[in-house]
């Protein structure tokens, strides 16, 4: 299959289906909850099967597309063609997959719709190896509006980081369609922390102690599915960390709804036009 088709399929599938781990977490939460919280989770699980069978987006907010191109240092790459590949594939996926056109230009003025859900936000970075990995987040804004950035004192430590995340969810309450998934970026500069808080959703490996502790603290807030209260306010926390300055401790939090829609495409050997 051509790279373009693979991207189109992956992005459309992400709008209709959640990752395996997210579905498992939702099913487990359904078993644990009762009353109205259980009713909400039942609707969420029903919704997943309806979107699959009707072949329409599971949520009408198909989001602003966030893309992260991780380029292997030994990959063949024509960066102009790579950018074009991403943009044309997304444009086609949005049309074919019936994505909502949720992007406006002139953000603080007229706010006129761009009409094609473009442009995406694209980040490029280098990594080891000879492949290019494209990561996509369909980022809904009910949850994005609850995201935060805090420049902590350098001595605030682990507890300070945990509190910054928990406070973010305290303020968010039922707005971001809980139970939520949370990405946390710790360190770097202010902007780097923010980008890491999205890269974190593509982390591999087991949940760390810090991630579990943050999740448990959020779950004590009793926000619950749809804000109905209960044990499950957060279904997963992903933390990414990098070195920072002696004078600071940046903490960025990306709040993602239960509809944690993401896709990954690996271009083996890189991409120079075919």
């Amino acid at each position, binding site marked *: 299959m051509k790279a373009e088709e693979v991207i189109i399929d992956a992005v459309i599938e992400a709008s209709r289906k959640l990752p395996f781990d997210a579905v498992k977490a939702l099913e487990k939460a359904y078993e644990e909850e009762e009353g109205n919280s259980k009713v909400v989770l039942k609707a969420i699980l029903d919704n997943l099967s309806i979107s699959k069978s009707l072949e329409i987006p599971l949520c009408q907010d198909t989001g602003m597309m966030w893309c992260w191109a991780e380029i292997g240092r030994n990959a063949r790459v024509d960066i102009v063609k790579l950018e074009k590949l991403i943009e044309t594939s997304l444009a086609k996926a949005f049309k074919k997959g019936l994505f909502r056109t949720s992007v406006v230009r002139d953000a603080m003025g007229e706010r006129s719709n761009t009409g094609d859900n473009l442009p995406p936000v694209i980040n490029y970075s280098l990594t080891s190896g000879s492949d290019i990995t494209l990561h996509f987040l369909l980022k809904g804004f009910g949850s994005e509006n609850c995201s935060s950035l805090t420049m902590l004192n350098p001595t605030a430590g682990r507890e300070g980081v945990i509190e910054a995340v928990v406070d973010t969810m305290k303020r968010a309450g*039922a*707005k971001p369609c809980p139970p939520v998934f949370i990405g946390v970026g710790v360190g770097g500069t202010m902007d780097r922390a923010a980008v890491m808080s999205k890269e974190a959703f593509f982390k591999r490996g087991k949940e760390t102690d810090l991630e579990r502790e943050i999740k448990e603290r959020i779950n004590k807030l009793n926000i619950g599915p749809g804000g109905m209260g209960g044990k499950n306010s957060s279904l997963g926390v992903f933390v990414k960390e990098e070195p920072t300055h002696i004078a600071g401790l940046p903490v960025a939090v990306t709040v993602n709804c239960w509809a944690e829609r993401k896709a990954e495409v690996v271009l083996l050997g890189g991409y120079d036009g075919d």
Partner: protein
Amino acid sequence: METKLFLPSQNWSHIHSGDIVYVSGKLYVARDQAHKLLVSEIKEKGETPFPFEGNAVYYMGPSPTKEGMAIGSSGPTTSRRMDEFSPFLISKGLKIMIGKGPRSEKVVEAVKEYGGLYLQAFGGCGALYASRTLSSRTLLYPFLGPEAVLELEVKDFPTICIIDSRGEVFKP
């Protein structure tokens, strides 16, 4: 408690905060920009552009419609952003609201004063609501694209009552 609401309606005092409410009938769809325009239009002309009394507004902006269906994915959007406009619209007769998430104190007060109703639809469940929508047509402001005002006919829309007509707010 589980209960039903048929719209338009003249009486919803049987609904209590915390109840599961299945909504059927007519819904008017409006979100951010449409609220802004509705308020300025009413202030200018002195009349409402569609009948408010007994009707409900649904905070939503759908994804495009698939062939053969009435509407695309169509779950609720965050109600909070409509808070600054709602008390005015409630005072003009649009007393039933469907959206997601909590409301401001001012909205709670307006619901209590005018005997309104705020229902929460299930956030993110756009496909589910699409499957329960029988028809849809654009009523106002088509130039707003996914933010235009629509008129829907729906069946058994699942919601939870967050603020009832007595001003009681559901707390987990």
